[in-house]
Each structure stands twice: as structure tokens, then as C-alpha cells.
């Protein structure tokens, strides 16, 4: 007889008198756990080449306990994902993207083997958290920890949003994924682009419309933009439903404890084909393309030098900037464009591997090699670093220009 998974009933209090009773199954705890391999210097890996089928396997050695473990190529891939920040759910997704298949037993089996060889450890999940945990005696650190924990708790989400998005898709959401919508989007982008170029030529006149209220105007633009992030996630969800997959969760949270954001869990789309995955990833950012074009058209038709024109132009600019940022894969953040890029190239752990390679180069543990994969890793790190620097410079310039 198969034993049912264990469940815990937890009572979660809110700030008022109310509370919520949540039933948490052990399977949920398992897929959200973030296994962490022991420190880099505490183990070593060596490749064993097979003389028969040409399959690669690896020997993983725990230097402290002198225990050895034989890993297949697939298991080595999983081992490399176990960095303490990636959940088992995300690891499974990366596995599917790489190998196009998934055996549900492979992860628990590997975890058991790694535990036996004492190759997994438990440490706080983020570097910031690790530093804070080390200095917990200081009262300032305690306040920071409490603030971060408090912000992390502010998560408004629902796991039963599937039927809602299915209804929304049925009642008109499907129209977004028609040829007519694609043509309309393209036409709007062209017209919006023409308007943007015209506005750019009169940049100083346009932004003079803020007058003495530049800071207030910029803040208002940012606030309004925040609403469009929810719309971005909503379109991702509709795309997921459009391809016959399930939306698992929708909500609001503080990313890393301090970045407010909306999010949607469309990981079920990984079970669909590549085209569906790409459409789902790209459809969200297109919200910014449409909204940006709309704002540019409003700005172009507003009186020159008016507050309306400045506000609309700034809103259009921030929307198109979000579009570029969402689709641009080289910025160390795993945005929609990054997912499309790694999906098309078939390298789901690009960021992780590229950073590990760069770190190894900087510490002298690896040498520059003109191979394809190493070149891709290096290119990713260099381009991402340059892109982030350019992004910061551009935004500082933009704010300074708007204010002055």
C-alpha cells in the first residue's frame, strides 16, 4: 500500500485578528527545498570515459570524508544545479529543458546518494542572509533581518487562479494570440516608433513640460508603470492557458525581500513545445510595447511643452525600456528574453555556468579556452556587465536631464 504524503496544518496570522489555515503537504516542502552542495573546495569531480557506449560518467569525491560517488552525466547536471538558491522544482525544469525528458525518481535518488556521501549542506539561502546571520549579535543587523523577513512575508498570492485565467481567455483573452492582434501590435509599434523619434528630436521641449514638478512627475510615471507589470504577468498567464497548460499561481511579493513585484507561475508551459514556451515568454513584454506606443502617440498629440506631453513621453520611455530589459538576455537577471535565449540555444544553466567560469578565471582555477561553450559563457558575462553599466548610466542621465 502506498502511504499518503504527510501533511501539516499551519495557522498563519495576519496583522488584523484574522488568520488562514494552510495544509502543507510534504511533497510541496520537497519540491520547494533548495539543496546546497558542500563548499567548492570540499569536493572534486573527475570524468570517467566509457570505452563501450561513449557515455560520460563522473566520480564525485568528498575530500573530508573520502567518500566517492559515481554520477551519470544527467546526475552531474543536477549536482551542478544544487547551489542552495535553486529549488528542486526549478532544477527539474532545467533538466527537462536540457534533456527533453524527466524521470520523477532521478532527483530523490540522487539526493539520497548525496546525503549518504555527506555532499549536501544546509546554509541560509542568500549571500545577504548569510552575512546577516553571521552578524546577528548587532542590533542593526537584527533590525535589517526583521525588516527583510517582514517584507518577505508580504506575499499576496492565489494558487487557485487557473479557472479565472481560463475564463478570461475564453471571454476574449484568446484574441491576443491571433494574427490580427500580431498585425495590430506591429502597426502600433511602427506608429509609436515614428512618434517616439519625433519626440526625441524635441527632447528638451518635451521634458520642459514637467516644469518644477519633475521629481513628482517621475515618481508618478514609475507608480503607473508598476501597474503595467501586473498586466505583463496577466498576459503571460493567458498565453500559458492559450497553449493548453495550467497557471499555477499569481500574486504580489517582495523579490529578494525588497523589490516589489507581481509574478505568475507558468512553469507548466515547460511541458509544451518550444514555440509555446517562446510565445508565452515574449507575450508579456509585448504589453510594454503596446502601452509604450500608446503613450508616445498621446505625447505626440499633446501640446508641446505641456505636463501631459512630458508625462506621456516619460511613460512611453519607461515602457519601452521595460520592453528592452525584458527581452534583452544579457543582464544577469533571468528575464523573459533570457529564457527564450537559453531555450533556443539549449543551455538552461547559462547564467550559473557562466558566472562559475568567470569566477574560476578570476581566481586562476581555469584558463581561457577558445571553445564554443567557454566563449558563450565569457560573452554572456562581458555583455551582461557592460549592459548593466550602460543601463545605470542611461537612467542616471535620464533622471538628471528630466530634473534639470
Amino acid at each position, binding site marked *: 500500500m502506498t502511504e499518503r504524503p504527510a*501533511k501539516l496544518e499551519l*495557522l498563519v496570522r495576519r496583522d488584523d485578528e484574522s488568520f488562514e489555515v494552510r495544509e502543507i503537504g510534504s511533497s510541496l516542502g520537497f519540491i520547494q527545498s533548495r539543496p546546497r552542495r558542500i563548499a567548492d573546495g570540499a569536493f572534486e569531480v573527475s570524468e570517467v570515459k566509457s570505452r563501450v557506449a561513449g557515455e560520460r560518467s563522473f566520480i564525485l569525491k568528498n575530500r573530508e570524508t573520502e567518500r566517492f560517488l559515481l554520477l551519470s552525466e544527467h546526475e552531474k547536471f543536477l549536482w551542478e544545479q544544487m547551489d542552495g538558491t535553486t529549488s528542486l522544482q526549478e532544477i527539474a525544469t532545467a533538466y527537462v529543458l536540457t534533456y527533453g525528458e524527466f524521470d520523477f525518481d532521478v532527483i530523490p535518488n540522487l539526493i539520497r546518494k548525496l546525503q549518504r556521501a555527506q555532499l549536501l549542506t544546509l546554509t541560509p539561502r542568500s549571500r545577504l542572509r548569510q552575512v546577516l546571520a553571521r552578524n546577528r549579535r548587532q542590533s542593526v543587523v537584527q533590525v535589517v533581518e526583521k525588516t527583510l523577513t517582514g517584507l518577505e512575508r508580504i506575499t499576496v498570492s492565489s494558487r487557485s487562479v487557473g479557472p479565472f485565467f481560463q475564463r478570461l481567455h475564453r471571454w476574449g483573452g484568446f484574441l491576443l494570440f491571433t494574427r490580427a492582434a500580431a498585425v495590430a501590435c506591429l502597426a502600433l509599434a511602427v506608429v509609436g516608433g515614428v512618434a517616439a523619434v519625433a519626440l526625441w528630436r524635441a527632447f528638451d521641449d518635451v521634458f520642459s513640460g514637467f516644469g518644477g514638478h519633475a521629481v513628482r512627475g517621475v515618481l508618478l510615471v514609475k507608480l503607473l508603470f508598476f501597474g503595467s507589470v501586473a498586466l505583463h504577468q496577466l498576459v503571460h498567464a493567458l498565453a500559458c492557458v492559450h497553449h493548453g497548460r495550467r497557471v499555477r499561481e499569481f500574486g504580489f511579493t517582495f523579490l529578494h525581500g525588497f523589490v516589489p513585484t507581481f509574478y505568475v507561475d507558468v512553469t507548466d508551459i515547460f511541458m509544451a513545445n518550444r514555440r509555446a514556451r517562446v510565445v508565452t515568454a515574449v507575450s508579456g513584454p509585448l504589453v510594454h510595447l503596446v502601452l509604450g506606443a500608446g503613450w508616445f502617440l498621446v505625447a505626440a498629440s499633446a501640446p508641446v511643452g505641456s505636463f501631459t506631453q512630458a508625462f506621456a513621453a516619460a511613460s512611453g520611455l519607461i515602457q519601452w525600456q521595460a520592453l528592452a530589459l525584458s527581452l534583452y538576455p544579457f543582464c544577469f537577471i533571468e528575464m523573459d528574453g533570457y529564457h527564450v535565449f537559453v531555450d533556443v540555444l539549449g543551455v538552461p544553466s547559462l547564467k550559473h555556468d557562466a558566472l562559475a567560469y568567470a569566477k574560476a578565471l578570476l581566481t586562476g582555477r581555469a584558463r581561457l579556452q577558445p571553445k564554443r561553450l567557454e566563449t558563450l559563457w565569457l560573452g554572456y558575462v562581458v555583455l551582461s556587465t557592460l549592459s548593466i553599466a550602460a543601463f545605470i548610466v542611461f537612467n542616471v542621465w535620464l533622471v538628471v536631464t528630466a530634473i534639470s
Partner: protein
Amino acid sequence: MSTPAERLACLRDVRLFTAFAETDLAALGQRLRERTLRKNQVLFREGDPGDEMFLICHGAVLVSKVVKGKVEQLLNRIGPGEFFGEMSLLDGSPRSGTIQAETDTMLLVLDRKSLNQLIEVSPHAAAAFFYAMVHVFIERLRKSDVRLTEATRWGLEATGLDVESR
């Protein structure tokens, strides 16, 4: 406010009083105070002082214990005919869990003075009361063992810890 007949009917449903004579039950009923809770209202929190136990006439309460921050483990749901708070009544220790009304609830309150009176005036009824209480304690202890095993199993399953081959 309930009538004496309603109180009596409520007491008859409580397992602790099944062996009580009608006269003993009526006398006890007069000594108990009534307390109502609206939905979600907290009666007491873990660690609060207390020397009363509560009998549920109607409604239901949740018993929970703090795990971390605002998260508590739900230990039990208690409904009509059941009781809680007896541990602090008997040994005077702080409350071991938090009680919160799940629905609008009406309770009868038995304090130490009323219990002492019961022991003095009706020793036979008091003996039946404690005997029934021991039975309930045994039942709760068994449930608690099951819960502990379930929590341990949860931890093993959630971490994927392989104890058998260690």
C-alpha cells in the same frame, strides 16, 4: 445569555459529566460562568496565565502553538461537548497553546473555586469527573503521538532524508 435548562443541556453533552446525577449537574451549572466569543476572537494566547477550564456549548475553537513568527501549528479543533484549558486549572501553569474561535462560540467557564466546591460538596461526582478526564487525557495523548509521528514523517519526506540506509 442561556437559560438554566440550556446550560443543563449543554453540560449533559460534555463527556466529563456523563456519570453525574441531575442534581449534581444542576448545582454545577449554577456555579459556571458563561463566555461568548465571536468568530476569530482569541480567548487566550500561549504563555498567558490562567486557572480556568472551558466547556464548549456550541461553536468551535482552534488550538495552536507558535512555530515561528506568525506561523502556528494547528494542534486541534474542539467542538460542542468538548473542553480545554484544564491543564492550567489543575497545575496553575501558563497556557500551553493559543485558543481562537473558529466560529461564533459559547463557552461555560469552570474555575478553581467551583472545582473545589464540587470536590467538597459532591465527592462522588468529582471522582467521576476526574475519571472521565483521565480517559480524555489518554485519548489526547494517543492523538498527540500520532501527530508527532506525522510531523517527523513530514520532515523526512520534505527533506528526502534517507534514514534507512544511514
